[in-house]
């Protein structure tokens, strides 16, 4: 059993100035039977072997959403995913790499810049939001959902940024095509009881502009913290787009 072993061997993909090196690291357990999280392994590797290893983390408690990495090629929240012998840790494959396990994230949020008006005219704030609304503010912005999203893939010539993809130089604009996260943000505005009809409609327009039609035949998104994206984000947006006749029915 792996559990009785005193150590766990993993591989960490590191990238510096466009060059990739795979480093083997042997995690030494700190207690009998310890089952470390991926983040524990990275912290120990930094303390003992690679002092300038670059990776993101914040809360260690699955709240801040910044520590997402790929483990064996699938996006995982590093502070809450246990590693096993032989696991491969690498930066998430859906965004361009800055260094080691750190990817450039800001092109995602920026695509909604100035496209989601705030209800600044709201004069009656004391309204209750429906339960579904609170499903949407569960999102911790971990970007695990970019994995396997055909809409997001349209941003890159070969579907994914390559190891050497340079981040776009003018990042003030953000990516052209959308993703589950930005659609969730649009749907949040639509579900907010204070949103005006005009803004609600413009949110659907924005979703269509970002490539909503990719969702029609897509088997659906997976959320890192378990939000039912298909049910609470994609379906209602597609329905709204269908109803307005701007997108063919499913």
């Amino acid at each position, binding site marked *: 059993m792996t559990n009785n072993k005193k150590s766990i061997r993993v591989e960490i993909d590191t990238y510096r100035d466009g060059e990739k090196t795979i480093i083997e690291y042997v995690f030494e357990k700190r207690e009998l039977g310890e089952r470390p999280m991926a983040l524990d392994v990275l912290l120990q590797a930094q303390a003992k072997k690679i002092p300038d290893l670059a990776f993101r983390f914040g809360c260690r408690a699955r709240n*801040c959403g910044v520590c997402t990495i790929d483990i064996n090629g699938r996006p995982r929240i590093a502070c809450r995913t246990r590693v096993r012998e032989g696991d491969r840790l690498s930066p998430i494959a859906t965004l361009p790499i800055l260094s080691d396990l750190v990817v450039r994230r800001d092109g995602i949020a920026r695509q909604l810049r100035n496209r989601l008006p705030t*209800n600044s005219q709201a004069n009656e704030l004391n309204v209750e939001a429906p339960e579904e609304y609170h499903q949407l503010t569960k999102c911790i912005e971990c970007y695990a959902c970019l994995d396997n999203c055909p809409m997001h893939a349209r941003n890159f010539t070969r579907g994914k940024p390559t190891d050497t993809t340079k981040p776009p130089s003018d990042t003030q604009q953000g990516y052209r095509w959308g993703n589950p996260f930005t659609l969730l943000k649009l749907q949040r505005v639509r579900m907010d009881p204070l949103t005006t009809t005009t803004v609600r409609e413009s949110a659907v327009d924005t979703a269509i502009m970002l490539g909503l039609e990719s969702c029609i035949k897509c088997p659906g998104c997976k959320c890192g913290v378990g939000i039912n994206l298909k049910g609470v984000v994609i379906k209602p947006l597609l329905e709204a787009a269908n109803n307005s006749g701007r997108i063919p029915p499913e």
Partner: protein
Amino acid sequence: MVEVRKTIAITWLNYDVIVVGSGGAGAHAAHAAASLGSQVLVVSKDPIGASDTKISEGIATVRASGAVDDSETELSTNLQMAGGDLPLRSITNAFAADSEHAYDLYRVNGLRPSIDTERNKPLSLPLPLGGHTKRRSVGHENCGVAFSHANWQIILQGQNITYIEDAWFLDLAVRKSPNKNEHGHSINEVVGGLIYHAANGELLAVRASAIVLAAGGVSTLYFPKTDTMRGNTGDSYAIAARAGAELVDMEQLQFLPFCLASPPSYEGLLAGEPVTASFLGVLRDKSGKVILDGVYLRTRAECSAAIMRAVEKGDGTENNGAFLDMTANKKAPLSGAYFEKFLATCLPSAYQNVRQALSKKAGRCEEPWEVRPAAHYMMGGIRVDADGASVGGPNGDGVRTKGIKGLFAAGQSMGGLFGANRLGSTSLTEGAVFGARAGRAAAAYSRNSDTTQNVDLIFKPLIATHSQFFGQNGTLSATAIRLALQEESWNKIGPVRTARRLQEMETNLKKWRAKLYKIKTSSSTTWNQSFIDLQELRNMLDAAGLILASAYERTDSLGGHVRLDGKQISSFATPYSVIVRSISDGTYVARRVIRPRTALKKIISYKIQEQKRLLMARWIRLLPKGIQDKILLKRYQAIMGEDLKAQETFPGAPEAAIGELTKP
């Protein structure tokens, strides 16, 4: 291989106001300044919004939300007394005045609390949180994450707001103004700041006449014994101190008493608060001896002190903590079920941590929890007035003409609001209230100042210093020094202190500081981790120096920490705050300023109440089990409703009180 030393590109920019940080304080400052027409740059080293605000329990103080008679004076006095009379009246008054509506900006941007339809206000938790004298704490679905969605909205959709993330604000550019203050001394004024944009691989030299520091706290100095975000490396304090600003109450750190001590992945994360111990919870040392009873009525500080004293005596548990024993609550045949429900609902994320980290039996409270304090919040900070403007000078409140002109602070960065103790749920509101105040003041100031003309020379030395840190030759790593610093900070300037330990810390700090220029860094310009590590280490060293210099002046125990070689400062003693500043690289000077004390009558009546409540708690514990159980059943039902329904309104309260007030 010969390393070719690259030079880093420098881009010059102009803004009216720079806001450092994208948590609650930063977002509110940016919004306020932009609304007054300022061009605002928000700079954040973490991805936009990723901050303590985002990972918080999401409970905010909204004055008058739960009680009609919750006046401004009531709340201001509450903060004042809780803080041991260290807070400034002008600042607690400002908090009390604005805390009814400052939070509305969150709501305009999508934060949706439950509504108390009778009162047409956000629904507050059913009882006052620990230390509050009134019901005024509002909980939210999805905790801090819901606040973060609103901050994201404020920053991303804001007119006149530009933002950059993955960008480290390094230092303020300050010049001695040709103008003199009324005492004939020259005035220091902000002319901009230098930023490392890691994602773009460049330095940004930004000319701006006003800067709001909203860059959070310093708990990472104690990592892994902390529950906060990694980015809390004391940047606000270090940056302000290096520019010559004064800071206040920097020895006052808040430690949460009941955090996890093991397993390692969970070390430091929150397990419970005093109130979760409920009526029968006690603290025990390793041999099972009760070291603190009536836990649910105690402050965070008292519980931390009890645990740390036991550890110091050699009576600590395996991982240097104590046992929080709540098994008596659980065993009671009638009230036990209510306790269980209470525990599971009043603090869901903390309880989740416990169930994941500890044994099944511990999860069901059939076994004590091993707990240990962890760093949570810096109650001191940059010395400011009620509008967040940097102040200085000998008198209690300080004056702007002796501060750094154009420098503002808000949120955890600022001092003067909480003094020796922060009440639960006040910090999210602090960000909204003082973020908005500082943002407005910064916009007004920048409109009337022309400090961005001919200032490029002032940036020169800054650019030179920081360029040196790229591709620095050396043999040491910042990581190794940081790890040593973190361990020593816990032992010497943490929850337990002595004069001797402070001196040892001073020696260590000198040694580490000397090593800063012997750290090897890479010359990469894009996301240079070794450069970032060096910068953050430098900030942590400065912050530790400020804490240390202030701790020397606090010779007895007060607030967040215990002085083993001193006595407990009584509420009747003359209160004083410690003011600290840096006079040269690595040298800090501290002095005391006397604070006015709350009227004796108030303190005495408060003390009597406190004793009464503690006696009551003891009396209940000593009753025969059967009678005890019946009394407790009634109490739980009064709070939670017989059908256990009322607690559905406890969305993650860290200190959702069960019955009595805990004392300030």
